[in-house]
């Protein structure tokens, strides 16, 4: 159908109305997934995708009596590309539910388009606070985490266990800024003092100069928010420049993430981080997930694998509740909002106000086991709920 026809109706009613009937007849639900499969975030995109596929495989790609079809598009972590891909998914593939987005910018970019087209969207990674705050939409629900959850959960623990003075270093982009701000808020609320802050640019690979600066500070510990290659470089150089012996390193789970620790090597030992899932969580759900994942892909799952796995399960449960009827987007989001189960990361459910997930957070310590490092769970912060503003 031509553009004129589709837009003629789109001002008033959901655009995917006309075609849903078609899909229903064949009993197929189409899930669109926008993830980065190329560029800097490619490995995250791959893990998310693998996690989703693992779960869909487990239910034989069927839920509520309909077949599940997943169409993946590469966003290249570029918001404009993501928009282009989203339009393709909506218009050409006629998807019923959207999921994905690793980069927060991508999530924000698709936000208006999703909202005005009433397309149910389950955000499965992007953690920008605003997506479930000021930019909240009836059609957007998030099953991953928010920056606030990650940063805030560490605050009180750090004050009690590390000390009263902390130096803060975070990658200079919205995510890094948000997480460290949340940490600072909680840490100061607990009574601690941030004695210095520094924000190296994203993708900075030599931290020598920053480490020299940090090294001359009077602090009890250093909070670092870095991810990916930044994290590897930071943690390694932190040790090489002799800081590790002087200040304990704390941060978010990505600092010593599952897929990075091998590269980081022993330098990771002794880091304390906050995260919402870890490989070594000792629950039945997690053991089952880890075993299944390792069997399917012959490597350890990462936190992104888990995110994908959970997102898939949420979709499946919602579809089951709907009996496979995806005609009405409002019903879909309602079904999603009611999903609640014990995931490998612990019990999860949605906050009906913010549309954001309520979950446990864990403080872990990195320890040496044999010739590699593992994260050990020290403490659980239960049912962390984003304040939503």
């Amino acid at each position, binding site marked *: 159908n031509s553009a004129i026809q589709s837009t003629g109706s789109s001002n008033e009613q959901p655009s995917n109305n006309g075609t849903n009937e078609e899909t229903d007849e064949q009993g197929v639900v189409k899930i669109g997934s926008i993830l980065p499969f*190329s*560029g*800097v975030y*490619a*490995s995250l995109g*791959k893990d998310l995708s693998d996690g989703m596929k693992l779960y869909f495989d487990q239910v034989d790609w069927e839920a509520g009596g309909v077949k599940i079809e997943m169409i993946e598009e590469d966003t290249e972590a570029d918001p404009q590309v993501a928009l282009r891909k989203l339009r393709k998914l909506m218009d050409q593939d006629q998807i019923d539910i959207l999921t994905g987005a690793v980069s927060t910018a991508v999530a924000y970019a698709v936000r208006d388009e999703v909202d005005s087209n009433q397309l149910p969207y389950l955000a499965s990674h992007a953690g920008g606070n605003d997506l479930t705050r000021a930019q909240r939409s009836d059609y957007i629900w998030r099953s991953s985490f928010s920056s606030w959850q990650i940063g805030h959960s560490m605050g009180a623990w750090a004050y009690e266990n590390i000390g009263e003075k902390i130096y803060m270093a975070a990658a*200079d982009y919205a995510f890094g800024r948000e997480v460290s701000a949340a940490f600072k808020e909680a840490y100061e609320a607990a009574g601690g003092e941030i004695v210095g802050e*520094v*924000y*190296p*640019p994203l*993708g*900075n*690979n*030599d931290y*020598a*100069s*920053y480490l*020299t*600066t940090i*090294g*001359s500070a009077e602090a009890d510990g250093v909070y670092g928010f870095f991810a*990916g*290659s930044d*994290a*590897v*470089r930071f943690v*390694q150089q932190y040790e*090489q*420049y*002799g800081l590790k012996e002087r200040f304990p390193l704390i941060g978010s789970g990505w600092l010593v993430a599952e*897929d*990075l620790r091998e*590269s*980081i*090597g022993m330098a990771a030992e002794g880091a304390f981080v906050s995260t919402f899932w870890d490989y070594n969580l000792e629950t039945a759900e997690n053991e089952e997930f880890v075993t299944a994942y390792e069997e399917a892909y012959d490597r350890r799952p990462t936190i992104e694998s888990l995110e994908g796995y959970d997102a898939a399960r949420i979709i499946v449960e919602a579809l089951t509740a709907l009996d496979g009827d995806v005609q009405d987007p409002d019903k879909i989001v309602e079904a999603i909002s009611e999903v609640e189960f014990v995931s490998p990361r612990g019990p999860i459910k949605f906050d009906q106000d913010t549309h954001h997930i309520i979950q446990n957070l864990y403080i872990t310590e990195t320890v040496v086991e044999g010739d590699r490092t593992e994260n050990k769970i020290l403490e659980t912060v239960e049912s962390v709920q984003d304040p939503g503003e």
Partner: protein
Amino acid sequence: MDIIGAQLVNGLSYGLLLFIITCGLSLVFGILGVLNLAHGSLYMFGAYIAYSLTATFSQSFWLALIIAPLSVALIALVVERVLLRPTYQLGHLSQVLLTFGLAYVFHDIASIIWGSNVLTIVVPDVFSGSISLFNQVFPVYRLVVILVGILIATILWYIQSQTRWGAIIRAGLSDKEMVGALGVNIKLVFTVVFVIGGLLAGFGGVVAAPILGIYPSMEFQTLILALVVLVIGGLGSIAGTLVASVLVGIVETFSRFLFPELSMFLIFGLMAIVLVVKPNGLLGKKVA
């Protein structure tokens, strides 16, 4: 004051690392007039190949230090003979486009072979210790980089400006036809230079990997930085590249120290200022 001294050492070692990364680009541009946008990719291959050698096959950094650059040189050889050669008569812009295309191709080849995870290379034990200077701990490897950088600079400078080869090579830049008509197999010269450029890029990859790491899209980040250094120094001048590397290294280190948020801005600002004041870079020459 100690902190200033320590930052100076940081700046110097970062600067010479930049030099090691950039000198191949500078050589190829200065001599062939080819702005090799795939230089970063060759650098990346150097790092990845070294990774494979140290992590899986031989576990020897020393072996990687020899084999990885040679393998990259081989890639450079193929690129020059098969792709670059037909474009010499088309002008500089074509080569920019061609090597850019190559960078894309190499990017995906690398991610197909090595995936998109973050990797590192472990340095041999001799270098893995640290030394205390200005009340600050420095990894020995960083200091070794300073020495290696100076060594390469000396060798390149000598060849380029003190030997007949240097003259022939630079003559080819202005008038290939005439160099040929005067009895020099300019095509061969170009191949050799490009291969040496590749060798240096690969070597840079191995040396830099323990410091800068190996991660997807590393080549583009390196490329931009290398281009900045190249331009600040002045095109075609190895000495200029050296001065610029050290300058950029020190400016970047101190800007991170003094204005951490502005460091990205400042490097490009530095380049803009240098070019506005000296339109041919610090040591570049302009000939009528």
